[in-house]
């Protein structure tokens, strides 16, 4: 899947999650959601699908190219969520062409925790950040971080809009 499409897939999933959560808060349904991260190992009891997705993808890619590879810088594949704000700040700056608001690295909106598929290997790379920011502008999709402290997050995490699609 092209990584630009992957962004939309994840955003789409987030909106589905919003709907599910809304149904919960309004009492329409009881929902239990499990969101696994990378799954590895062999599903020995599964008669159909014994393999997972990500690890076999890397293995097959290596065999196909006769060379093991990883995407991008490959150094911070798993990064703390606090890495994300620079990306969104840059995106906001590209979009509005105004200086980013002063924002501490700890000001991470809770919904960023769902945005786990950002398709770059290192959020620290300015080039990748710029690309991401440009794409977000082009597709008029901007992620707006909630500017609140970690403590506030605990109290407000079930409310609020973190996405601005008006651009």
């Amino acid at each position, binding site marked *: *899947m*092209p*990584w630009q499409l992957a962004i939309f897939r994840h955003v789409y999933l987030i909106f589905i999650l919003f709907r*599910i*959560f*809304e149904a*919960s*808060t309004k*009492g*329409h*349904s*009881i*929902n*239990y*959601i*499990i*969101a*696994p*991260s*990378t799954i*590895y*190992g*062999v*599903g020995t009891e599964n008669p159909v699908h*014994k*393999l*997972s*997705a*990500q690890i*076999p*993808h*890397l*293995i097959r890619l*290596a*065999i196909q*190219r*006769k*060379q*093991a*590879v*990883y*995407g991008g*810088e*490959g150094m*911070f*594949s*798993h*990064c703390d*969520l606090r*890495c994300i704000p620079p990306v969104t700040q840059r995106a906001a700056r590209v979009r509005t062409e105004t200086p980013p608001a002063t924002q501490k690295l700890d000001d991470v909106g809770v919904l960023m925790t769902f945005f*786990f*598929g*950002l*398709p*770059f*290997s290192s*959020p620290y790379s300015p080039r*990748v950040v710029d690309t991401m920011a440009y794409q977000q502008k082009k597709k008029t999709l901007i992620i707006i971080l909630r500017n609140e402290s970690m403590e506030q997050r605990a109290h407000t*995490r*079930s409310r609020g809009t973190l996405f601005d699609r008006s651009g």
Partner: protein
Amino acid sequence: MHIHDLAGLYLIVLDKALVERATGTFTATAVSDPYERFYWGSVATHQWGNVAQDIAKILYKKGLVDSDKAISVPVNEVSSSVASNSRTVANRGFKEGWKPYHPSLENTLEEDVNSVLEEDGFTK
């Protein structure tokens, strides 16, 4: 997380749902926090760069790649799922008694490789 650990988490949540339904603990009334039944499933962290290096060593020993080192390629040449960032802690799962105990990604990588080779017809 190991697939069998994930299965364990599913069972725990399923049990919880069935018990809540049977006992009426949880009826479909409005809840203040919809996240209270949202469970991350994660155990440890890894870096895709390191995973690729490990894969390189395993496949090199088997003679399937030309180098025992992994190299960087542009992110659009790999699936976005392996050039992504995600770090979560499964607090709710742990609170429900979930105890993942299966081997780490590094320790099962060879098994994964062998299974892929078997499925793709490299070995009999």
